[in-house]
């Protein structure tokens, strides 16, 4: 099934192929939930908290309920549903207490959006403001207020997570490998540093939006801009105690997700309003401000790393403590903590490791999955740390990386042995370095320095990630043959821009041996019609669904051959096929067309053979296991995708301004099924990573109010932020259990971009930046060893950047 085929034997896999969704998207005909409306549909507006933490003493909706056009008003008090993916800790609307700025307290559904807005204005909420706990490090103090005093009563997935009732710790992941104390004792150098990054927003161009109709007999229809139809349905049914058969989730085209739409979002809110309005369909679309403050963001992180190194530069021991800021609810953040915990060292072998990773509740908008699932944040720390440790012990950072990189025979933090076909991080690092001319400046670069007065620096950073998913994650693909012999592909893995459907289409065409024009992947997803898929997350889609697609194609052919054998009076073993017919190998003129068999073959006398041709492929992750909760031992990784970036930057030391001259990104993708799509993922993720590296981040005032919930104050990169030169290349060490050797790469492009930039800036200027983003003023300050600017949470700085003289080598 996953044979290592040479590119010459392949017709579509690895070759250029278009995307099946282009026409609809380029003409404006693709329908997003934003574009949908249903007869009698109501529109929603929300009353939101101006406080980060407050007791709700009363909500008066009497005036609002009596206003023109208003069909339903709901408050948290009347809703007793808890929602949660891993820890069930969130109400649909705040109840008793608000836990973050911008949290919804009451909702109105009215005939027009203006009427809903006017009604929301008329809702009066009586708050008793309480002191919020804003910084996650403050939340660990013994006297910190508890964001969830009832944590001990919440249900959660016990095999995987460990909440600490009576504290703000939503999860504690532990990993213990080897003997850390011994490792440190044998070390020549010990270097300890702390790194951090703020919360950031995914910024899908289409904000969260859903339409829900709670029909008679508790039959619920949901149209939503979400990544995972079956997860929306499952969590929805759990929250409301409904049978799964009652709920149908449909997902048309989706305007970006990046993890922010991975789980359940605004669907339950629309549902309770629809139910209260007598079953009218109800639509809620988040405003851009709500996307920042009501909907989830990426968790902030503080990461302390202490590393012991031998005289030869080999890491002997590493002590790692991650403090993840979950915000007000756990959502995906607890699993980010788990996944980051077992991957915490990056692609390096650490013989003796001690890891504690905490998810910490605070009174801020909550954290969720975001492209890279924690790896962007902690690789910022790990790959800056590798640079700083190397600098501190007087070793070249590239040589230090290569000395410690995972190789065949290395053992990961969880005890997994790296083998030849796991992937080749060494090759990725070396290639990234080569492409930026690491270690020296070219004559042209020297001339440029002289001409501009700006300093040029080059940095490298490596990366790794495996899908973070349940050990038994499964999916299915169904192929249905049409009357003309063309094939429809149904799957519930969604394609919200990644291009996975283009690759699935190539795989199906390849395995069937059909012209690709005959293959259609159905874009709108529907839990009533598509086979199950867990979620569209984790860079697992191509591997799992690609394998299921291969199996489905084989099943379809097997079924077609069975009919053909009967029709042709031949043994199925003697049959072969091309793109239009099945024929007898030794008498090729004797054949039967797929079209004639597609919906049942009619013999000359009219009697039927076979039936509609369908192929089913099911695939489940194999050989994975839950991690031991005390030691972290186990096998969590479906596949490891390794990579590295090389970066060239020029910095104006007078002003702190900088410009990225070049980035070269290398990934070991196993096999690039569609090179243009791999490149699109590589550059798109790189720019998203660059955005968080150069400017993005949530800024709060001392009361916990989000100060920059808009594009005016929270910029994302534009075309003018592109590096002058962008190169992408792939290493192809086939994944033995991947479709045609492929492994996922959707998230990886965003990982380590910031660290590569920080490393290049350090090479250019010596500035030891440990907090991202690296705004120009941060670089200016770091160059001068200044104190950080105190403006991420104004009262309790998590700092920007500075040199830490005390973290010098110990001999």
């Amino acid at each position: 099934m996953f044979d290592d085929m040479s590119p010459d034997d392949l017709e579509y896999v690895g070759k250029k192929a278009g995307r099946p969704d282009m026409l609809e998207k380029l003409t404006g005909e693709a329908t997003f939930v934003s574009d949908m409306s249903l007869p009698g549909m109501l529109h929603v507006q929300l009353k939101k908290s101006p406080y980060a933490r407050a007791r709700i003493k009363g909500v008066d909706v009497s005036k609002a309920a009596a206003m023109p056009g208003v069909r339903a008003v709901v408050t948290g008090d009347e809703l007793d549903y808890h929602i949660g993916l891993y820890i069930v800790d969130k109400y649909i609307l705040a109840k008793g207490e608000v836990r973050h700025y911008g949290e919804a307290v009451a909702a109105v559904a009215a005939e027009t959006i203006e009427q809903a807005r006017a009604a929301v204005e008329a809702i009066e909420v009586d708050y008793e403001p309480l002191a919020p706990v804003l910084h996650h490090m403050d939340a660990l103090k013994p006297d910190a207020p508890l964001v969830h005093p009832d944590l001990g009563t919440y249900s959660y997935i016990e095999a995987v997570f460990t909440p600490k009732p009576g504290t703000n710790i939503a999860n504690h992941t532990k990993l213990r490998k080897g003997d850390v104390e011994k490792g440190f004792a044998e070390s020549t150098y010990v270097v300890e540093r702390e790194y951090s990054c703020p919360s950031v927003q995914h910024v899908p161009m289409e904000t969260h939006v859903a339409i829900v109709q709670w029909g008679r007999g508790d039959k619920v229809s949901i149209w939503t801009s979400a990544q995972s139809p079956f997860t929306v349905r499952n969590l929805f049914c759990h929250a409301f105690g409904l049978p799964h058969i009652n709920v149908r989730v449909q997902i048309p085209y989706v305007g970006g997700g990046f993890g922010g739409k991975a789980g359940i979002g605004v669907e339950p809110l629309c549902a309770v309003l629809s139910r209260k309005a007598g079953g009218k369909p109800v639509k809620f679309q988040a405003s851009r401000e709500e996307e920042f403050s009501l909907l989830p963001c990426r968790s902030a992180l503080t990461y302390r790393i202490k590393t012991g190194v031998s005289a030869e530069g080999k890491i002997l021991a590493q002590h790692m403590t991650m403090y993840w800021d979950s915000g007000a609810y756990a959502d995906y953040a607890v699993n980010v903590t788990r996944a980051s915990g077992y991957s915490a060292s990056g692609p390096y072998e650490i013989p003796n490791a001690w890891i504690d990773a905490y998810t910490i509740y605070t009174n801020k908008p909550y954290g969720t999955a975001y492209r890279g699932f924690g790896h962007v944040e902690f690789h910022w720390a790990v790959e800056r740390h590798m640079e700083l440790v190397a600098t501190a012990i007087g070793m070249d950072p590239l040589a230090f990386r290569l000395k410690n990189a995972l190789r065949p025979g290395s053992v990961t933090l969880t005890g997994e042995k790296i083998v030849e076909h796991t992937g080749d991080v060494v090759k990725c690092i070396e290639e990234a370095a080569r492409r930026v001319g690491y270690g020296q400046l070219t004559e042209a670069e020297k001339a440029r320095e002289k001409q501009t007065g700006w300093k040029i620096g080059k940095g490298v950073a490596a990366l790794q990630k495996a899908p973070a998913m349940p050990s038994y994650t499964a999916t299915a693909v169904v192929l249905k043959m049409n009357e003309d012999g063309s094939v429809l592909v149904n799957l519930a893995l969604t394609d919200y821009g990644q291009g996975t459907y283009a690759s699935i289409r190539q795989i199906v065409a390849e395995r069937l041996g059909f012209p690709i024009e005959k293959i259609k992947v159905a874009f709108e997803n529907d839990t009533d019609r598509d086979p199950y898929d867990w979620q569209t997350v984790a860079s697992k889609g191509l591997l799992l669904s690609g394998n299921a697609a291969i199996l489905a194609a084989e099943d379809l052919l097997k079924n077609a051959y069975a009919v053909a054998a009967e029709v042709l009076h031949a043994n199925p073993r003697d049959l072969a096929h091309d793109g239009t017919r099945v024929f007898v190998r030794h008498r090729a003129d004797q054949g039967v067309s797929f079209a004639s068999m597609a919906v049942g073959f009619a013999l000359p006398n009219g009697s039927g053979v076979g039936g509609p041709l369908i192929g089913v492929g099911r695939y489940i992750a194999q050989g994975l296991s839950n991690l031991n909760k005390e030691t972290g031992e186990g096998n969590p990784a479906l596949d490891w995708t390794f990579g590295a970036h090389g970066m060239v930057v020029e910095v104006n030391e007078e002003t702190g301004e900088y410009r990225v001259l070049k980035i070269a990104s290398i990934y070991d993708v196993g096999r690039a099924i569609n090179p243009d799509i791999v490149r699109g993922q590589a550059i798109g993720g790189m720019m998203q990573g660059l955005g968080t590296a150069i400017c993005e981040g949530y800024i709060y005032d001392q009361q916990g109010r989000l100060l920059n919930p808009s594009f005016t104050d929270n910029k994302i990169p534009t075309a003018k932020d592109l590096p002058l030169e962008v190169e992408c290349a792939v290493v192809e060490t086939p994944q033995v259990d991947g479709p045609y050797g492929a492994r996922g790469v959707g998230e990886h492009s965003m990982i380590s971009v910031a660290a590569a930039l920080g490393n290049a800036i350090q090479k250019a200027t010596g500035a030891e930046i440990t907090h991202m983003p690296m705004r120009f003023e941060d670089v200016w300050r770091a160059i001068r060893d200044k104190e950080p600017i105190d403006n991420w949470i104004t009262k309790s700085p998590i700092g920007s950047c500075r040199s830490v003289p005390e973290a010098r080598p110990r001999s």
Partner: protein
Amino acid sequence: MRIKLTVNGLIYERDCIEHKTLLRFLREDLGLMGTKEGCGMGECGACTVIMNGRAVNSCMVLAVEADGASIRTIEGEAEGPSLSDIQRAFERNHAVQCGFCTAGMVMSVKELLAEHPKPSADQVKEAIEGNFCRCTGYTQIVEAVLDLTGSPEKKGELEHV
């Protein structure tokens, strides 16, 4: 207020409340849903349309201001049943991922090419600077435009090590 305007060559006459934006008018009154709203504040460019030859953020224009104007939207871009040159170049160069910014992006490129039939890469970047795209990282969009105009600037490819 009664307004009359031309959209994609067709004349529309409608009553319109004064505070309705051109974006909402196109979507809600004319059913032209191809133009998207990304922020509603004139920052992201998803709602870009061509108004009297200029690319504008239609969320920042009142429909009544467009009285008498000539508007082009993504729905008028294809030439009959076949895609326009710009659309075909986007298709060829994988310049679309989720597709939500695409309509606005195509409109900004259309304005650029009307003024500069042979733009440089920098001119393309300048022209689409007001159009946010979170998916593509812009490179394949810039390449699509340069491919269309026959620019000698080298197009990137995924390389194999």
